[in-house]
């Protein structure tokens, strides 16, 4: 069993009477790279600030290593924080920014020197150690912020949208850096973002937030393949949605569903309370075997992504579907071409309307 390191219990918070967090519960285990993923304004940064102690919750508890830290001031928590805007101190050199936390803890000069150098090494900042934050690039500033938070060896590290201020290329680079640093330091990290790609590539566990609540917690695989509701399904990855009505139950776990595109058969062990449902499937959940669940349409557009080919198909009923296929016969596809595909019945996701 993994060791529990942080437990967030029943957290609630209002700002000026407006509820921003409601009944938040989750557990983070040691070495986790735990993601809080949600659209902007869903309260995820507030949650992170409550864990760090910058904001007080109205209700609930934060337990860190079996200790209730809810009322502990931020400077007594030993929780690292990487700010979205980095919050580097403009009047201190890179080196001094990193050394600050160690100086506060009154370590010896030699120790500080050694630790800071290790950090500079790990974050590849040796060359800019004596420069001021304004003299270095965005990516370097980001690494200083990371080094500054890590150098004091915090129990956990919180990261608030750390890559959102970087351009696309740097973001990819830093994502790999973060992955390396996480595996190198084995630090438990909680990472807040609205970017599902970051979450899918880095996370060990993801908590999906929507309007002040956590909707689902799970590994990236669980969340992708078994989303709890339509919101989660459409927030993570591409999804095709079709309205439908359950007309019949066959062989226990199969459902016959009437849709605009005809009758579909779905295999599910989910119990549905309503007959009116959304039938959803991922772009890759299709097959060339066209015996059942067939959809016909015209190729509207395509996107070649190297390893896959994404097709946008418009049916006669004006439904637009995105499917992804093996790009082997890329040349064959021309706009306007008629396409037939089937949805794999086991991979159909059903949600109540």
């Amino acid at each position: 069993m993994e060791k529990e390191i942080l437990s967030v219990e029943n957290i609630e918070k209002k700002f000026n009477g407006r509820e921003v967090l409601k009944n938040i519960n989750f557990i983070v285990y040691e070495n986790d790279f735990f993601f809080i993923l949600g659209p902007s304004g869903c309260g995820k940064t507030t949650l992170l600030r409550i864990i760090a102690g910058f904001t007080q919750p109205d209700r609930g508890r934060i337990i860190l290593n079996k200790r209730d830290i809810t009322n502990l001031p931020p400077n007594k928590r030993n929780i690292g924080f990487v700010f979205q805007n980095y919050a580097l101190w403009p009047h201190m050199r890179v080196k001094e920014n990193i050394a600050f936390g160690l100086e506060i803890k009154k370590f010896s000069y030699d120790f500080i020197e050694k630790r800071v150098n290790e950090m500079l090494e790990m974050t590849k900042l040796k060359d800019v150690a004596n420069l001021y934050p304004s003299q270095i690039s965005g990516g370097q500033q980001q690494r200083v912020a990371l080094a500054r938070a890590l150098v004091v060896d915090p129990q956990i590290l919180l990261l608030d949208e750390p890559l959102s201020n970087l351009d696309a290329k740097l973001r990819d680079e830093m994502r790999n850096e973060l992955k390396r640093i996480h595996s190198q330091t084995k630090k438990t990290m909680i990472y807040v973002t609205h970017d599902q790609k970051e979450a899918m590539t880095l996370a060990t566990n993801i908590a999906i937030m929507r309007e002040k609540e956590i909707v689902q917690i799970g590994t990236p695989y669980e969340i992708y393949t078994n989303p709890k509701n339509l919101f989660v399904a459409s927030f993570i990855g591409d999804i095709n949605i079709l309205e439908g009505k359950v007309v019949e139950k066959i062989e226990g776990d199969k459902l016959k569903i009437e849709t605009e595109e005809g009758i579909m058969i779905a295999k599910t062990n989910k119990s549905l309370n309503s007959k009116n449902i959304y039938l959803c499937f991922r772009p890759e959940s299709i097959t060339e075997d066209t015996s059942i669940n067939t959809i016909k349409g015209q190729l509207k557009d395509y996107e070649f992504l190297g390893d896959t080919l994404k097709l946008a198909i418009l049916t006669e009923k004006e439904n637009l579907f995105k499917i992804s296929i093996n790009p082997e016969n890329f040349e064959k596809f021309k706009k306007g071409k008629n396409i037939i595909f089937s949805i794999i019945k086991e991979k159909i996701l059903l949600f109540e309307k």
Partner: protein
Amino acid sequence: MKKKYFIFFVISLFLILFIIYPIFYIFLQTFFHDGKFTFELFKIVLNNLIIRKAIINSFFLGLIVVFTTSIIAIPLAFIFDRLNFKGKGLLRILFLLPMISSPFVGAIGIKQILSRFGSLNILLIKLGIIEKPISYFGSGFLGIVILQTLHLFPIMFLNILASLNNFDISTEEASYNLGANFFQTFFKITFPLILPGYFAGSSIVFIWSITDLGTPLVFEFNNLVSVKIFHSLKDINTNPAGYVLVFLLCILTFALFIFTKKHIEKTQYTTGKTQIQKIERQIKGKNLFILYILLFVVLFISLLPHFALVLYSFSKKWFFSVFPFEYTLEYYKTVFTHRLTKTGIFNSLIYSSLSTTIDIFLGFFIGYILARWKIKGKGLLDILSMIPLVIPGIILAFGYVTTFSNTILDPKNNPVFLIILSYSLRRLPYIVRTTYSSFLQLNENLQEASYSLGATNTVTFRRIVFPLVSPGVFAGGILVFAFSLMEVSCSLILAIREKYYPISKVIYTLAGRVTDGPNTACSLGVIVMIFTGISLFISMKIFSKKIGDFFRIG
């Protein structure tokens, strides 16, 4: 939380006692006689022909000075905003120089040049241009207008320049593009857009002009509200004129301030957050030469009082001649040996440094509370700390003398506390505003980053907040110090006994002594001027362009 409210309460109470209460006391004295509410005093005072004349004179003085400063400042501001030429930066600073001494000090100097048998008349007679000496100052009124204009036009200049800085030139281009000519564009587009800045500048100049006490006293022109208030203090128990006049002055300044603020808010057109386009025309060759001559003539005239002051301070004999007959350093020696000047310098240094300390301390605290604390009633502190902006020195000093007479703080016995306080409270709004905006600009994350690394409040304040905020505050402190050295009204009114005189009162007293008094006064004036100039320069280096904020409302 309790501690926060306690600190908040103490600061507010202090400000109420020394800002609101004196004003309130004046209002009471104006309307309550023998315990009854009455307009009687009002009637008596306003029926007095001399007082009525003084009110009218003051009003006209203010209007005329607004007009004369505008004539100099508007073209100047446009030149500095729209044109680019060599030495522009330096010239911009030079045009602030007229502010580095109080107009009354300059008045002592310029009397030597523009008096009946002063340099100018002698020169003109020698050249055969005139036969009889011209009286430039008339009854003294004209002298006040000249001195105030030369002293105050930089304030107008800074205000208009600031407006022009925020002015998007593309709005003018759009007007030209639609077929408007220069004049149509100026009156329909440019002027309305810079009006808020112009109006703010005008208000400051107007109030400054009518509450100026030193200059009328030097020109011995007594028929002005400020002088009447000053003299009324001698028999304040039997003569209510002072209260009524101060009351009227209060109402006028408050009204102007509120009107200006409302006007600025109403006309804060935001043209989006896009980068404001600046196109400056490069001036070269012959045009540059003409421009230089123009600017230097204006600069020379505006600095004439200062030149005269310097010349006078070095002159051994200077009567009936264009320039002094003989020069000497004697009076500078006197400054450091004469009993009165020594006292003045000593007192002023003490008063100014203490008031600066109080200001930095209070300003830091109030600025921090306003920016960072989430407590109820914070707005009160904001208002309290901004009110001194609207209270001219003469009103505050008058309030102190009347309110605290026969108390432990009575300035007739020992004015030190009240002088220091009046100096610091008058400049408090600037310091509060500086710290407040520094704190706002200081991202809270910078503090939080420090907390998250285990630093306490004290350490965070010492190592993060203080180093980042202090340059602005200390630059402000230097200015407060310089302004305190120049403070006139409060010094003239509050320092009643000689041993408590600060520099400005010493200068005023010496200027009135026949023999060698004026020369020594000038030497002292020059020393203060140099000192203020250096302070201004240092603060400017730190503040860069933002120095204009010190002379603006809104």
